[in-house]
């Protein structure tokens, strides 16, 4: 066994023998032979996956790949700017598993730290944009613009289907808007928002408009008249802006914008060849309920103290399905946290100074260029300067590139430079010396081109009329932690509130919270990966293209598809990309009428939400009692919808955690009727190495690299949702107008040249390769596991799930099982009988698990009143046993309630979780002891034979708040940092 495999897989050989024995099997192979239907088992050997490498070898190989990237001085801009991540943030968040291994904060009591960080992000965005409510982040700026367009269509009273797009919008934003507009029947019209009297003329008959300010060319414009004109025709005004610029420029909110969005990347987040980054999205008051994305709100706990939670969740896809405001689940939590903490560390004064340095530097360059005889195109800008060099733009950029300076070629006659935090870092010295060694020779500037240093301080190209004068970021959180000591302690305090994988198992069904190993994470912070601009010249990005090519090859091999796109930034975007590929395929064959997507009733809500965004109508297919797709109903629905059938979306193994037998019959029936089969890869961790989607009838699938391939969840993102497809769909997979390579893979290991497939669809993400800087994680995972290791991981995950199911079955019914009574990689514990008998609810059990030191399993999905448990292969047998004993202990407690030993309204379950304060404050008047409340393991230890509980006591986790009142928070919406006085008794 490879060194790494035994680090990744938690259960040892001895433990596995014990577990297999308890299930009545003698080997993992025998278990998998029984569990996975023979009809779908893969025969072919995984020939293109290299043998496992050690951790050291893997790092060395990644180093070699990284060295193939040439990181230049990035001044291309276009929404991506170099920034400095403060070391205190890098060390305490970016490299800290307490932050990056956490899950989406659905369980608020154990997530108060990152909820506080996210509400700080929301507050920061509201302040800088001047808007009423901001959400907790979006996947990227371009997709946020698409979401804004969709939201504008929802809220506008206009009947129009025309959306106006600023000619100054970033090219990638325009491209993504085009991808997203067509399927839902929206027509884009590009206009030049010139302001003034011209404004009214261009807005006629539109339901909304996207105005970008500062514009793509750098111009800072007065857009008040444009905003008024759009509103005048009943349109919704969306403004794309820049958080750093907004420290100096009047806020779009003050000008009347309805929605403001942009990227928070330049608040200390690496470029990463395009991502991951968090976009921001803010709306004016009254539009909160129509907003996409996660929203953090303030509510109160059982003691009436302020507590944070996800609010207005009824907007989201997991509840509203095809009527949701968006299809997004996993977002960019970790990146939003990084950006928020950058603002906390620098504060309003520091941020303003950074912005001022950037603006001064840009203006100084423009003045010097003009003095040297250059034609500076725009006089009013923040950080971006255009120079007209008739006929010489390309050659100028080429010589700049040779010198290591990357600038943007607008057209044959114009180049463009964006200044950023790095250029100001150099500039502090330069202002005194008056020279930039990199830029000056390219443009023939000499130190004498501008007079004294004093003259340039405070000199920016922001028009006086548009200079911001209101105070922002006045909340104490932005004005306290400016020393490194204070910041370090603040971040520690937040991290200590949360339960992540560094504390214990997170047995969330369908989420695959496996190990995110330190070696896998190593390369993420390297400058060779982090410092790369997404639109850097192709010759600079060989390392990335090599890494991406290898990962594409490995993933196609593992899934049985012909080609794969790594562009989608989350599973939801992968779904959308896959469905758009199906749509494109049907349209290319003249099958315009194929617009119907069949989705089983057990499907994840995102499936339905994505189908609607791909312009399809959703028809629900029934499931049988055992959770399998009802094949009779499927055939009936296929017959009923005839040649309108576009696709079936099915999850395999099913969302019920079962290897369905009928999958071949299902996919055949759809194909026979001319439909395409979309297989949702959320549960791939039960299949990898044993069966392939491409072999069992799938035409297209998305995977979740943040589930199966070890990218950490980051507390709710980043994610990567690659979409794999058969050859006939390749022309319709997402391409990108600025991609450095259009062939997939860019480097084909078999042919030695470029790969055979070109992805010709429109982009779904802002960057050509989505979120490349986290791809080294999945690359390292596959590299260190090898094909045998991946198979072993799958079997180990299935073993652990079945071990839990078998041991808990006598205490809680296990809802679904497949062949030979086995589950796949997760199991559903039915709590409804318990609730009926004892009144103890699934919520009570989930919160009580906190007292036992656990993150609750997935609640009420896919079946209300149940818990879905997925242990993954990474947990060892002690942790599995600890969880099992906790669940048995909770069952005993529930039985005690049923037996009348404890009152129904005063027992350790309904009062869970217990804070330290709740145990010591005042008299203890409960029907159970303090020890039972906080150390339940110790209390039940007498009844068990296991010796692991002394260890358990040392792991005690104290929740920072008691049970959070969900209804109060939804009824009293508050989505910004509360005043500190709220926390005083």
């Amino acid at each position: 066994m490879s060194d790494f495999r035994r680090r990744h897989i938690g259960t040892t050989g001895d433990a596995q023998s014990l577990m297999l024995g308890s299930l009545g099997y003698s080997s993992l192979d025998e278990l998998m032979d029984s569990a996975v239907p023979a009809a779908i088992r893969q025969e072919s050997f995984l020939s293109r996956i290299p043998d496992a490498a050690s951790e050291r070898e893997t790092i060395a190989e990644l180093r070699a790949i990284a060295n193939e990237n040439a990181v230049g001085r990035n001044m291309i801009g276009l929404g991506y700017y170099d920034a400095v991540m403060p070391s205190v943030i890098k060390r305490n968040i970016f490299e800290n598993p307490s932050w990056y291994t956490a899950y989406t904060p659905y369980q608020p009591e154990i997530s108060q730290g990152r909820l506080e960080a996210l509400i700080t992000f929301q507050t920061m965005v509201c302040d800088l944009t001047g808007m009423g409510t901001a959400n907790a982040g979006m996947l990227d700026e371009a997709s946020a613009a698409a979401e804004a367009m969709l939201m504008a269509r929802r809220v506008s009273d206009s009947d129009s289907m025309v959306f106006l797009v600023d000619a100054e919008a970033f090219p990638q934003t325009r491209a993504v808007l085009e991808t997203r507009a067509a399927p839902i029947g929206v027509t884009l019209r590009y206009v030049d928002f010139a302001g003034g009297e011209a404004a009214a003329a261009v807005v006629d008959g539109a339901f909304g408009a996207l105005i970008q300010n500062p514009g793509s060319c750098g111009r800072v414009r007065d857009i008040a008249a444009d905003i008024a004109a759009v509103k005048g025709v009943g349109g919704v005004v969306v403004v794309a802006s820049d958080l750093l610029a907004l420290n100096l420029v009047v806020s779009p909110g003050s000008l009347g914008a309805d929605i403001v969005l942009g990227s928070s990347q330049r608040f200390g987040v690496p470029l990463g060849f395009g991502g991951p980054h968090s976009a921001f999205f803010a709306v004016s008051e009254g539009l909160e309920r129509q907003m996409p994305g996660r929203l953090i709100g303030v509510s109160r706990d059982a003691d009436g103290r302020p507590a944070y939670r996800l609010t207005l969740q009824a907007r989201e896809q997991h509840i509203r399905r095809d009527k949701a405001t968006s299809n997004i689940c996993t977002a960019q939590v970790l990146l939003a946290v990084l950006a928020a903490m950058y603002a906390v560390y620098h504060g309003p004064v520091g941020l303003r100074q950074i912005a001022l340095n950037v603006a001064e530097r840009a203006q100084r360059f423009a003045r010097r260029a003009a003095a040297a005889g250059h034609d500076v195109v725009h006089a009013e800008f923040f950080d971006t300067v255009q120079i007209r060099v008739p006929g010489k733009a390309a050659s100028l950029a080429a010589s700049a590139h040779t010198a290591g300076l990357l600038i943007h070629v607008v057209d044959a006659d114009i180049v463009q430079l964006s200044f950023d935090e790095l250029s100001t870092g150099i500039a502090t010295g330069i202002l005194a010396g008056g020279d930039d060694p990199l830029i000056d020779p390219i443009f023939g500037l000499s130190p004498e081109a501008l007079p004294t240093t004093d003259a340039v301080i405070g000199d920016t190209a922001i028009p006086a009329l548009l200079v911001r004068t209101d105070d922002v970021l006045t909340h104490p959180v932005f004005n306290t932690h400016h020393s490194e000591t204070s910041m370090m302690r603040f971040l520690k305090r937040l991290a200590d509130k949360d339960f992540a994988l560094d504390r214990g198992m997170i047995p969330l069904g369908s989420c695959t919270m496996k190990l995110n190993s330190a070696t896998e994470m190593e390369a993420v912070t390297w400058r060779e990966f982090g410092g790369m601009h997404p639109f850097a010249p192709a010759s600079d990005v060989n390392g990335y293209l090599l890494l991406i090519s290898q990962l594409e090859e490995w993933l196609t091999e593992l899934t049985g598809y012909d080609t794969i796109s790594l562009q989608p930034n989350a599973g939801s975007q992968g779904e959308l990309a896959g469905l758009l590929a199906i749509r494109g395929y049907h349209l290319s064959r003249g099958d315009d009428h194929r617009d119907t997507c069949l989705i089983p009733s057990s499907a994840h809500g995102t499936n339905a939400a994505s189908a609607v965004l791909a312009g399809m109508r959703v028809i629900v297919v029934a499931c049988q009692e055992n959770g399998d797709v009802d094949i009779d109903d499927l055939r009936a629905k296929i017959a009923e919808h005839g040649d309108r059938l576009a696709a079936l979306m099915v999850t395999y193994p099913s969302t019920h955690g079962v290897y369905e037998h009928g999958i071949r019959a299902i996919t055949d029936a759809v194909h026979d009727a001319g439909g395409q089969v979309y297989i949702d890869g959320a549960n791939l961790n039960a299949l990898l190495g044993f069966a392939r989607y491409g072999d069992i009838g799938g035409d297209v699938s998305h995977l979740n690299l943040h589930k199966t391939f070890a990218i950490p969840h980051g507390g709710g993102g980043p994610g990567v949702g690659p979409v794999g497809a058969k050859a006939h769909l390749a022309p319709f997979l997402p391409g990108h107008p600025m991609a450095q390579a259009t062939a997939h893979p860019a480097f084909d290991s078999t042919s030695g040249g470029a790969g055979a497939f070109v992805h010709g669809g429109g982009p779904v993400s802002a960057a050509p390769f989505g979120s490349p800087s986290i791809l080294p994680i999945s690359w390292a995972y596959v590299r260190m596991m090898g094909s045998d290791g991946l198979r072993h991981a799958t079997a180990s995950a299935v073993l652990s799930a079945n071990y839990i199911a078998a041991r808990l079955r006598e205490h809680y019914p296990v809802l679904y099982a497949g062949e030979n009574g086995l589950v796949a990689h997760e199991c559903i514990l039915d709590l409804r009988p318990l609730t009926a008998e004892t009144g103890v609810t699934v919520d009570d059990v989930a919160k009580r698990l906190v007292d036992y030191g656990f993150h609750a399993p997935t609640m009420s999905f896919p079946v209300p009143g149940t818990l879905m448990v997925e242990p993954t292969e990474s947990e060892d047998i002690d942790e599995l046993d600890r969880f099992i004993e906790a669940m048995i202990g909770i069952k005993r407690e529930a039985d005690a309630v049923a037996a009348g030993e404890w009152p129904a309204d005063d027992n350790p379950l309904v009062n869970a979780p217990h804070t330290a304060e709740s145990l010591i404050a005042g008299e203890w008047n409960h029907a159970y002891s303090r020890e039972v409340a906080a150390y339940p393991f110790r209390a039940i230890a007498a009844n068990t034979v296991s010796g692991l509980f002394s260890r358990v006591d040392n792991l005690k986790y104290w929740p920072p708040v008691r049970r959070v009142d969900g209804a109060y928070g939804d009824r009293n919406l508050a989505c910004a940092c509360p005043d500190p006085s709220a926390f005083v008794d």
Partner: protein
Amino acid sequence: MSIPAELQYTSEHEWVRIEGDTAVVGITQYAADALGDIVYVDLPKVGKTIAAGSVVGEAESTKSVGELFAPCSGEIVEANQAVIDSPELVNSDPYGNGWLFSVRVSSLGELISADAYAALIAE
């Protein structure tokens, strides 16, 4: 489970009280309990013309969303501001202060008796 005998019901778990040419509409206690803590109601605007069976609004809880269907055709006379301000009234007093909207009826949809509704939810 309270199912007042004097009211009429729909299979969509709404109750209707006929007062002259006006129908007062709410959701049943069964529906309110099933939704859980209701946090938001979206009610039709006064003056809006509605058709029996169409979706005219929503009741939203922390965990779920229920659509409101028009039990009759007609014109909206009033939307209950008290419920808009305090959605919890739907849980605490579904047949009283938790009423949702009233309609000047042009034609009734299919309504059932309290007994029939009790039988429906017992299924």
